[in-house]
Every structure is written in structure tokens, then in C-alpha cells.
């Protein structure tokens, strides 16, 4: 399937910028998002093709604006909801609770 993730040969993205002595992760949330994705994958509810497919469903404009582990997070949320391991409502409710806690 083609889509915005199918980037081979597209023009206009500019030069490749490599970071010197790049760390494996750039923020703590990236570490947790990475590990959560792997650990949830071990539940056996989906395979690698399903997780890639899920990431590719991100709306195109958001996909291009998002960082790599934001793609992962988006895909993980959708797979968990799709497989019935989590509901959208409980996730949003928990986000709201944390947001209030952080704003105090």
C-alpha cells in the first residue's frame, strides 16, 4: 500500500542531517515508548506487520510532522484499543488525570 510513509524517491525533504555521537534515545519518554511497544508486542496480540500497518494509519500531515517514537506511540495506542486490551475512554481519562496532576 502506498501512503505518506512510502518516502522512497520523493523530493523536497532536504539534506540528511546526522547527529555526531548520537545517543540511542533523546528523552526518557522515548525509552518508555520503545520498551512499552516491545513488551506489549510480547503479548502476542499482533505481529510486526500489524504494528507497521498501525503506524502507517497515522494521518499523513501528522505522520510527517511527528518524530519516530511518536509514530510508535500512535501505533501502540491503536493496536491496544483494536485488540480490546484498553479502551480509548480509559486512556484519555488517564491522560486527563495526569495532566491535572502535572498542572497542580
Amino acid at each position, binding site marked *: 500500500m502506498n501512503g505518506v510513509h512510502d518516502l522512497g*524517491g520523493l523530493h523536497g525533504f532536504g539534506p540528511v542531517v546526522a547527529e555526531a555521537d548520537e545517543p*540511542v534515545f533523546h528523552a526518557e519518554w522515548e525509552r*518508555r515508548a520503545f520498551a*512499552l511497544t516491545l513488551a*506489549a508486542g510480547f503479548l502476542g496480540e499482533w505481529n510486526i506487520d500489524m504494528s507497521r500497518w498501525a503506524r502507517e494509519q497515522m494521518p499523513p500531515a501528522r505522520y*510527517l510532522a511527528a518524530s519516530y517514537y511518536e509514530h510508535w506511540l500512535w501505533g501502540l495506542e491503536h493496536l491496544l484499543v483494536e485488540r480490546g486490551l*484498553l479502551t480509548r475512554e480509559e*486512556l484519555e481519562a488517564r491522560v486527563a488525570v495526569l495532566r491535572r496532576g*502535572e498542572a497542580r
Partner: protein
Amino acid sequence: MSGGHEHEHDVEYTAPLGETELRVKALESLLTEKGLVDPRALDELIDLYEARVGPRNGARVVARAWVDPAYRKRLLENASAAIAELGFTGRQGEDMVVLENTPRVHNMVVCTLCSCYPWPVLGLPPVWYKSPPYRSRAVLDPRGVLREFGVAVGDEVEVRVWDSTAEVRYLVLPERPPDTEGRSEEELAALVTRDSMIGVGRPKAPERRPR
């Protein structure tokens, strides 16, 4: 989170979390409560891929191939098995293909669709490898991309670009640097860079030995 003087520091230093950070925290807390993930397992996974699995593994494979012709042959014929001989196995490296650079052929690896990369030998990919500029241009203008990485490839050399998939992962076997006769496998491994195994760099030149 902030150690001994939480109350002062919370006011002073704790900026509100960004939306993405909040979502990750929300997911981790919910999945932990449901018993679907174990936070200690998460810590273990992070440590594995941050501290233990990385391009030093691939460098050992390359150095072994440089010193041991029989190993090199096995590596080119059945990369997954030859890499497993050195103990490197696991996720995102189940089906490996090793691409041999020669004076006539330069190989480079990309994943245009996402980020497929041989984790057991290179660890997790750098940001540029997963970014739109590299994914779009590696297949359109590979020589231009190589120039940006400081790799000059002569017109007489064929450049082959390999687009990874979820099934097959590639490792480039760079050419052994000149003036390395008699170097130990360990010394040679220290010359092998991550980028040289993706095909966007060359191994380091050896330091001269005092005569």
C-alpha cells in the same frame, strides 16, 4: 522524582509535561495496572538496547570476516547462521543478508518505508536513518547522499542500494582498510564504524605503529 527537596523543586523545576510524555505515562500506568507489562521488564529492555546491543556486535562480525576466509564465506552464504555463531541473534535480525563491498561495488542500506534495521548487529537505528531526507533520497540520489556523508565513490564503482523490509535485514561488509596486515581481530573491530556497516561510511584508518 526530584529527590530530597520535592516541595521546593516541584514548584521551581517541574515544567508541565508535554502531551506526548503524558500519553506515554498514561499508557505505562494503565498497562502496568492491568498486569499486561512489568515495569522491570521495561527497564531490562531499555538497558539491553541502550547499553548492550549495538554496532560493536556488527564490528566483531566484520573483523572476523576480514581475518577468517572460511567465516567470510559462511557469512556471505548464510548470514543469519554465521552471525549467530558469534552469539548475535534475536529480534529484527532473524533473516540477515550480508552485502560485500568490493573495489567495483559499493552497497548502502535504507528502509524507505520505515526503519527496518538489523538490531542484533547494529542496535537501534540513528534518527537520520529513520528520517524523511534519508529515506526519500537514498534511492533517488545515493551518490549525493554518500557525498554528504563524506564518502567519495568513483564513477567506475557501481552503487547498489538495498531497501530493507520487515523480513530481510542487511549488513554491509566494508572493505578491509589498507595497511592493516598483522592487526588482531580486536584491533580491526575497533576500525569498523556503524556507518561503514550501513554503507554510508568507511572503516577508520589504522593508527600508525611506531617502528
